[in-house]
């Protein structure tokens, strides 16, 4: 693997990890900000998520539908860069004589 391909691969891995981190942050933000119960909001009622450390798991809250945003796009872009670098390395590889 030449130096430009290695740089492409490292960039892809970094972007993939950034996308994963962005996804995790987005999910944590969503779960940690429930809405108060309201009979007029039209939102579904759930028990508060235990993933964000709710004090009492039987607390009823409401959540709006989850929207991911751009985080998966960043993750997929990193995967594309990584796979492209591996494909280039496979195409240009020669056996050592």
């Amino acid at each position, binding site marked *: 693997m030449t130096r430009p391909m290695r740089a492409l691969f490292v960039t892809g891995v970094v972007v993939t990890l950034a996308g994963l981190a962005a*996804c995790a942050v987005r999910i944590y933000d969503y*779960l940690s900000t429930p809405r108060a119960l309201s009979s007029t909001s039209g939102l579904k009622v759930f028990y508060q998520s235990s993933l964000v450390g709710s004090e009492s798991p039987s607390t009823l809250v409401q959540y709006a539908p*989850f929207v991911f945003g751009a985080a998966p796009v960043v993750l997929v872009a990193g995967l594309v860069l990584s796979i492209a670098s591996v494909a280039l390395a496979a195409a240009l590889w020669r056996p050592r004589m």
Partner: protein
Amino acid sequence: MEESTHPTLFEREEPPEPPAPPVVEVHEELEQPEQDDLVAQPSVRERRNPWLIVLWLIGVVLTIAGLWGLIQAAERAMDPSYVIVDGYGSEQYRVVGVEDFYVIPAILVSLSPWFTALGIGSIIAASTVHAVQWSRRG
């Protein structure tokens, strides 16, 4: 009478013989390849393209993961037990967390098609590299 300095017919020197061809000694040891030559040849394992193997693995793993995610998303969408119906007496009512109801389906729907596409693309790329190397051999 002076003596002639030129040699007579009987005194002439014979022409020198042509040089004999060099004697070639054939050593049977030289006919066989030396051990160092055998070591210098790339072995079968070294001839395998490691990046191609990695590309195949990425393609297969991503394709399987993407298809599994798509199937899971479809099953969740069709499973009536994931539908909250007010909580009054319905036999199919099941209390699900917000993770099961909103977050996991969103992850599956967002990422599974991409994973499937990337996996299939990786498999196509690996097949293309195989085809190019095959034509170079010919």
